[in-house]
């Protein structure tokens, strides 16, 4: 058996709330975050609605009480807000460099855009010989590791600092690495998750792939045409059994299983039968020593692209069957697709589902997909016995990840 690793804290910021409680209230009240962008100056601003966090960078900086706010990217700021909540939730002191006083800590961050939001604003200026001096502070913030180092420095993490980018499965993969580092004894605890801000780059990129919906996205609906982009950050704190005992913590959840596989089908599309997804879910169940029937709720990747939902749906039917399939829903209509952040945000939602014994709804579902028998849950189901939540995150490059979060008994 593998040693147990507990989830002792969670933090999230998305278009439906700046902390876990606000996100929870929006989820159970069916309040989504979709609107036309107020903060991003894009040609498509009145074409493609997005799930944008309404706070400006200045407001985020004020919330974090940053004294010298030079060169902080929106991606870094969103990450810091969610990590702060996760640490506070776990009762971990971080002020005055105390975070690693007793326990070796890893920050395993993930992102797909990093500083792109700012790069795209200053890039043409940077290429001029006589660029403006304000642009200079965003030269070295472009790469994906930069936001991680801002977060590490703000909270004082130094033992293990790294960043993963496997497109939309990135933060699920960060949770898996956290598990493995703790099991190997390399660190005692890990801050795992991801952050991404909206950018013109991603809006245009997904638009060229023709997988953006001009309407509100409809996961697993027969009429779905694409996804809505979102922004946000979500992190969980993983701690070893030793810390939980020494600190007399009473966690509600632990990570019971995980797997990462590759579809090996296409650079940006999933295989029609969902082979990678099937293998990821199956291997995660095997790791957790669980049967498909043990799963109470599947938080599907459910982007609402024709390709993803068909592939994921078929994989679910193959593994879980078409009758007595666990309840499943996609929370993407609430938050939009937050790319690298979605695995972290949805891990927080899985914890909320277990803590409150509730299933969150899939919005906008009306017509069952003609290729499938199964249908997502469309209403909030309270007082539901939620013991094991299976969370899927799939990305470009054929990357398929499943994390199973279970209730501590």
């Amino acid at each position: 058996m593998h040693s147990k690793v507990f989830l002792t804290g969670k933090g999230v910021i998305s278009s439906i709330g700046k902390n876990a409680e606000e996100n929870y209230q929006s989820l159970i009240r069916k309040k989504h975050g979709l609107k036309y962008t107020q903060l991003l100056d894009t040609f498509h601003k009145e074409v493609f609605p997005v799930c944008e966090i309404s706070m400006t960078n200045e407001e985020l900086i004020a919330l974090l009480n940053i004294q010298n706010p030079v060169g902080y990217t929106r991606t870094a700021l969103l990450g810091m807000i969610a990590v702060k909540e996760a640490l506070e939730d776990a009762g971990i002191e971080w002020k005055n460099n105390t975070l690693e006083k007793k326990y070796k800590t890893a920050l395993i961050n993930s992102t797909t855009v990093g500083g792109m939001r700012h790069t795209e604003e200053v890039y043409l200026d940077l290429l001029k010989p006589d660029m403006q001096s304000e642009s200079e502070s965003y030269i070295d913030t472009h790469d994906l590791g930069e936001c991680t180092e801002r977060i590490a420095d703000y909270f004082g993490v130094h033992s293990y600092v790294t960043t993963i980018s496997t497109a939309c499965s990135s933060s699920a993969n960060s949770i898996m690495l956290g598990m493995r580092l703790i099991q190997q004894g390399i660190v005692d605890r890990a801050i795992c998750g991801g952050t991404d801000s909206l950018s013109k780059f991603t809006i245009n990129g997904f638009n060229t792939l023709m997988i953006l919906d001009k309407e509100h996205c409809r996961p697993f609906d027969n009429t779905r045409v694409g996804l809505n982009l979102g922004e946000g950050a979500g992190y969980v704190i993983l701690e070893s059994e030793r810390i939980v005992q020494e600190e007399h913590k009473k966690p509600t959840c632990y990570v019971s299983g995980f797997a990462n596989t590759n579809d090996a089908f296409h650079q940006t599309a999933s295989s029609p039968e969902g082979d990678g997804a099937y293998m990821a879910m199956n291997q995660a169940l095997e790791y957790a020593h669980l049967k498909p029937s043990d799963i109470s709720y599947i938080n599907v990747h459910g982007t609402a692209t024709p390709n993803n939902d068909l592939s994921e749906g078929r994989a679910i039917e193959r593994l879980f069957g078409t009758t007595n399939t666990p309840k499943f829903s996609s929370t993407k209509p609430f938050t939009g697709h937050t790319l690298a952040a979605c695995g972290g945000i949805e891990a927080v939602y899985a914890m909320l589902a277990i803590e409150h014994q509730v299933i969150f709804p899939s919005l906008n579902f009306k017509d069952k997909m003609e290729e499938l028998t199964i249908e997502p849950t469309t209403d909030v189901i309270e007082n539901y016995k939620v013991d094991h939540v299976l969370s899927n995150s799939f990305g470009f490059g054929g990357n398929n990840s499943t994390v199973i979060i279970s209730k501590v008994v």
Partner: protein
Amino acid sequence: MKKAVYINGIAAISPQHTFETAEFLPTPVNYDDNYLLVVDADYKKYINPVQIRRMSRILKISYTCAKNCMQDAGITSLDAIITGTGYGCIDDTEKFLLSMLHQNEQMLNPTAFMQSTHNSVSGIIALNMKSNAYNYTYVHRGLSFESSMIDAMIHIQEGKKNILIGGFEENSKNHFEVTNKISFWKKNHIPSLALLEDKNIGTIAGEGANFFVLSADKTANTYASVLDVSMLYKPKSYDEVAAAIQDLLDKNNISTADIDVYISGLNGDSTMDSIYYEVADKCLPSAALLYFKHLCGEYYTVASFGLWVASMILKRQEIPAILQVSKQEKKQIKYILLHNHYRNINHGFYLLKHE
């Protein structure tokens, strides 16, 4: 790490003649413009003609390198594919970004966007090798390749057999010009092979792809074993660096006197190099001091080229003169410490052993 980890296959596509050659840095190539590009391989030997037309330069370089590395190790199936890259596919990123800005977000082509994703290299390796295995990409600046190494070594501890791991980076003119504005590169053009003679700030920009097969079992092709890899983030002083090295050696029951060769990341930047000299003088006085960035330039995952150099030295038991900071007498080489830092923010340490 409890279980031994062997380097059973290697491949490097670099600004030197390192690919498909049995020789070890036979005729060093000099570059005069502080901007080093790889010596192109015959990519069409490795990639089919339909696919090759659509692939970006870095995808071709990396995939070719990965495939050759697996051939070197004599394996066809993998238990994990792990890559490390700081900027990912920067050329396609810039291409998409510039079209977007110049064309006011209209009439854009998806190919550059699809290939700009940081995990497109690990994805295309999986796709072409039909590998459903674990597939990760680390993107943490000067720790991208180190993170990949540690992940691969954990896989071996977990019982996996063969892991493909690679570090890659590509140079781009725009990126070079932009980062030149914050003094990453030397203002004066210097001959790359005389890198350490220039005492100004900045270094020379490079690129490359360096792949390895790490395995649980030793084979006839084994180059070396990796005893351990560690990372250090933002050390406040030399003492913290020395302590990290000591800690790594202690954990593996090796003394500083056991280290025969210290491969350093000296890059000719007067503000960055003193740490290596200090380690060489104070911590590892009996080890031969080597360097390699005059051959490949500086980039986020350049330690992967250092690992290629270390693997070759340990297997062949020879140190080409071009790598030596000062002339060394020939002796048996058992342990190597490879140490690279990126702007004194990210330090990586590799402890390697002759097999």
